[in-house]
Every structure is written in C-alpha cells, then in structure tokens.
C-alpha cells in the first residue's frame, strides 16, 4: 500500500513521458521531424487561409517549423535571467552575509509572497501596467513598441524568478563553511572582498545549479507569456515586438475546436516533448550539482 503510493510519482513521470511521446509520434507520422526542428516558419493555418486565395498545393501545406517558437522561448528566458540573476544573487548575498537574523526574518516573507503570487496575476499585471508603461517610455525616444511586447514579459518573468534564485543561492551561500571566511579575514580581506573572492567562487557550482533550475522554470512559464507577449511566432531580435513561446503554442493549439487528431492539436505534444526533455536535462544537471556541492562541504539539506 505504502509502496504503491510512492510508485504513483514514478507512474506520473512515465505517464507524462508516454502520453507525450505517443501523441508526438502521431504528429511526426504526418509531419517531418527535421522541418519541425529546423524549419523557420510556423503557420499551421495556411491550409485554411489558402482556401481564400492562392490554391497551389505546395503552399497549402500547413508549416510546422518550430525555430521561431524556440527562439522566442529562449529570448524571453534570457531577458528574464538578465534581470533575475543579478537581483536574485545580490538579494541572496544580502540575506546570508549582511542581514542580521532579525532583519532577515522581516525581509524573507516579502520574497516568499513574491514567490507565491500566481503567474496569471503576474501576466495580468504585465499586460495592464508594464506593457503600456514600456510603450509610453519608448515613445519618448520616438521608438514604437507594440502593446504585446517581449520586454514586458521578460521583466515580469524576471521578477517572478527572483525568489527562486535568491532562496536557493541563499541556501548554497550559507552552507559555505565559516572557516573559509575566517581564513580570508585573517589575510586582511574586508567583507565584500571575502564574499567576492572566497565565498562566491566556492559557492559557484551551487549558484549555477540554482540559476539552471530557474531557467527551467522560465522555459516552462505559460501564463505571463500568454497574456503579455502575444501568440504570433516572430523571429526577431527586437524585444519591443510580440513573440511567442513553446508553452503558449501548447495552450493555443489545445484550446481551439479542432479534432484531437488534427496535426495542430498533436503539435502541442511534440512541443511538450521538447520542453520535457530540455527541462528534465537541466533539472538533472542542477540537482546533481547542488548535491555534490553539499557533499563537498558536508552539509545535507537537499
């Protein structure tokens, strides 16, 4: 009975994997794998649009080239990380090195609240407040930004990620042995130097692992992107244009009225499969890194 209960988590993982692979295989029976991975155009509705105008058979084919989608996903993730990594890491340093226990106890709940806000709420905030503010701000310089822009999404996603990075890095930095700090002080380093040249380098594997976990969180984030960054696959470097991500396409292709065996519906599972594989690899790397880090310093909190 107890063993069965614990097997449920294993079954869930395999359930996810099998169901996704199974449907993804259905998808790849009709669509080419190489075009999915390397094609530059995602236009599943062309078949529908062609009915009205040109009717040549070659272009009537729906196109499932996922590169613009992957590009959007990574681009938005990178933007989120540019905000979240410095802020999160600096917060972690403050919490573990500078803050008194009392101050720490007062500040921590704020970060916890930030972590507990549902992403649909963040998405609404991004669309309601941040995106118009960005449009207005860039209009001052005569640059035109779209109301659904990748930048607002990146900013808000970055804020969402801050608590994850800060709490994990805080944990890692606190587990660097005090002896190492004392050694640095004995050599005449001041506190900031100790942190920069001794504590951070020795905590680096753990910090990188926590950043990786945050990356996988950002890759899988859905609601913020759905509400703030748009639905159009758009291969561009301009953060002021709309963009889309893997998760958004999954949502979009499963909320329509299509038949379940439609390639559009099945494409969600192909995208989900890629997402699953990528996040799984990242997670395994980061969890094992954090583990070996803790083993090195002989603390066992994970």
């Amino acid at each position, binding site marked *: 009975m107890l063993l069965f209960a614990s097997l449920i*988590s294993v079954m869930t993982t395999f359930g*996810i994997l099998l169901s996704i692979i199974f449907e993804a295989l259905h998808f790849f029976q009709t669509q080419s794998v190489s075009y999915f991975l390397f094609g530059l155009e995602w236009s599943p509705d062309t078949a529908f649009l062609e009915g009205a105008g040109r009717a040549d058979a070659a272009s009537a084919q729906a196109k499932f080239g996922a590169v613009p989608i992957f590009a959007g996903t990574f681009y938005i993730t990178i933007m989120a990380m540019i905000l979240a990594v410095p802020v999160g890491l600096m917060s972690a340093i403050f919490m573990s090195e500078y803050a008194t226990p009392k101050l720490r106890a007062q500040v921590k709940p704020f970060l916890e609240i930030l972590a507990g806000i*549902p*992403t*649909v*709420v963040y998405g609404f905030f991004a*669309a309601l407040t941040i995106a118009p503010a960005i449009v207005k701000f860039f209009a001052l310089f005569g640059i035109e930004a779209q109301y659904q822009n990748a930048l607002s999404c990146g900013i808000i996603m970055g804020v969402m990620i801050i608590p994850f990075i800060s709490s994990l890095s805080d944990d890692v930095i606190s587990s660097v042995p005090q002896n190492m700090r004392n050694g640095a002080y004995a050599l005449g380093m001041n506190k900031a130097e100790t942190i920069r040249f001794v504590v951070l380098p020795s905590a680096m594997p753990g910090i990188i692992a926590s950043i990786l976990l945050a990356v996988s969180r950002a890759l*899988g984030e859905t609601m913020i992107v759905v509400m703030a960054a748009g639905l159009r696959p758009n291969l561009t470097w301009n953060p002021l244009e709309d963009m889309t991500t893997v998760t958004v396409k999954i*949502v979009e292709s499963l909320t329509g009225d299509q038949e379940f065996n439609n390639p559009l519906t099945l494409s969600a599972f192909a995208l989900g499969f890629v997402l699953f594989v990528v*996040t799984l690899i990242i997670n395994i790397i980061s969890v094992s890194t954090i583990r070996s880090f803790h083993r090195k310093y002989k603390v066992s909190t994970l």
Partner: protein
Amino acid sequence: MKAPNDNYFYIPQIKRRNQKAAIFKYLTVLAIVFSISFLVFFLVDIVRAGYPAFTQTYIKIEVSINDEVVENPYGAVNGKQLKIISRAWLRDLPLLIKANPSWINTKQEFWALANSEVDQYLKGKESRTSERDRAYVDELKNDGKVELKFNTLFLLSGDSKIPENSGIYSAIIGSLLTMIVTIAIAFPIGVMTAIYLEEFAPENKLTHIIEVNINNLAAIPSILFGLLGLAIFINFFGVPRSSPLVGGMTLALMSLPVIIVSSKAALKSVPASIRQAGFGLGLTKWQIVRDHVLPVAMPGILTGSIISIARAIGETAPLIIVGMIAFVPDAATSFSDAATVLPAQIFTWAGMPEKAYLERTAAAIVVLLVLLLSLNAVAIYLRKKFERKW
C-alpha cells in the same frame, strides 16, 4: 581630527577597497529594495485597479407592473431608461414579479442595476455612453436617484456576458470543488509516500529511482501536467472535460512532490529516540509510526500541504489545457459538471474588451491574493505554533 594626509594610518588603497566594499553592500541592499518596492507597487496597482469593482451603480426607477411586463420586461422602462439600465436586471424582472404576485397592476419603485457603461462613467472612467445618456444620468444623480452600493452581485453571481451582472461565485465554487479533489488525492498519497520512503523503504535501486523521480517531478513545467491530464485522464479514461474531477486530479499529481518532500522533512525531524522507545515497549514498526511519529510530525506535514495547496489554487496553465476555461455562468453542483476556477476566470476576463471586466479582473485577483495570503498565514502560524527544538 587630522587631515587624511597627516594620518599615518591613512592608506589610499585601503580607502579605495573600503569604498568598493561599501558599494558592494549597497548593491545587495538595492537588490532587496528593488524586490520589496516592486511588490508594494504591484499590490497597490492591483488594489487600485480592483477596488471600484466592489461598488456598483444602482438607479431608482418606477415600473408599472402588469402582465405585459412579464411577457416583455424590456418594455417596462422607457427608451431613455433602457439605455442606462442593465439588460440583466430587466431580464430577471419577471422572476421577481412571479415571486411577488401582489405587485400586479401596481406601481413599484426599484433600485435597478445600471449597465456597465453608466457604471464606468459614474466612477469617472472611460466609457462609451453617449452625451445624452450622460446628461440624463447626471440629472438623475442630482435627484438622488443614482447610488453606488456595495457590489453583492460580484460575489454572488457567476460569469456572464453582461459585465455588470458577472461575478466570481461560480469560479469560487469551482475552485473549491477542484481543491477538494486535489486534497483528497494528493494528501493521503503524498503522506503515505513520505512515510514509506522515510520509515520503511530499504536502500535499493527502486527507492533511489523513486526519490530522483520526485525531485524531477517537482521541477517539471506545470503545463506538461495539463498535457498528461488531457491525454490520459480525458482521452484514455474518459473523465469529463472541464470538470473539477479532472482538474483536481491533474493538480493533485502536480502538488504531490511538494507534499512528499515537506512530509519527508517533517518525519525526518522526529528524533530517533521516540522510535527506539517504541521498540523498547515491543511495538511494531507500523504502530510506532502511526501512534507516535506521525502525530509529532503532523504540524510539519500540514504546513507543507497547505503551501502546496495554495500553489495549486493559483495554478492556471494545466487547467486551461484540460478545458477549465469554459464559459460557466452557473456554479457546478457536482464533481463532473463543467466548472471554472478563479485563476481561469481571471484569465478569461483579462481578455475581454469591455472596460468593466478590467476592474473585475483586478478585483478577482484581490480576492485570490487574499485567499492565498491567508492560507500562507495559516501555514506560518502552524509552523510557529508547533515549532520544537529537540
């Protein structure tokens, strides 16, 4: 104090190093201040956007009630009034009359629900009301026939295509039913798993696989749980789409790892001496766990479970995949009815073009945040109350 140059202990390099150190410290403080000020700005902005939805405009009108009104309630008011009064209120008028048969062939005064555009106009917001309607509303206002009242409809009615008539009641019921399913599945399984892994499991390949799996499961994007729910629960087992049942099952699988990890930590913190005392009295392993270890670990287990449930309440993406963004005007009455949940309702309203939905979205967010914060507060209270050092 001497000038720096006359001070023997003054070394420019050290001064520079200390300045750098101070800058570094300020940067870390800045990071914290950034997060906190964002949070404050965010909360203020949402509350500011949401609080108007808690009041609503009502207009006093006189209706002469006869059988014709029951047949065609839209004819009960004159053309001028028809433009400012909610169609939802007029639609419900016959029901009101049927409940009070004595009103027939009399004149009655009502506080009628105003339509959303008038409501927005009176709240000083952008509105599509025409100049003539505005003048008429202003005139009524001067006569004291317009009033902003507490918006009970927002809390007591379900979703509606008529903005002034829409509320979060059905979404709250949907959330409640979904959470019941989630708790009923995730809590026992999660606690049993934790007990097995912590107390009974032998060290072997299988338990190692389970442990690694749980860690991975905790970090899988939530939307993939939606894909699982769709492919397995809906398409394979035929659980009804959009129902609290399938939503709850999906969320249960999602919140399992958090419950397991926190329950394991709670069980681990129970000192070995309690178990040894049990063995000394000749109890079996199961008796020790059931009667001694589990009660001691319970507060910790509950804390972790409440936190994971709070996370599940705010989750949207997997529920959208299993169809819980359906338009649901009436509250679900069973676990297999179509239902919507609060975050999904927020998502739906956020996409509506009418301005009146904007403040409702923000107000629903306020309700959701209050709910989540109070759940977290309960968790913190539990943790504080039962905190124990062995």
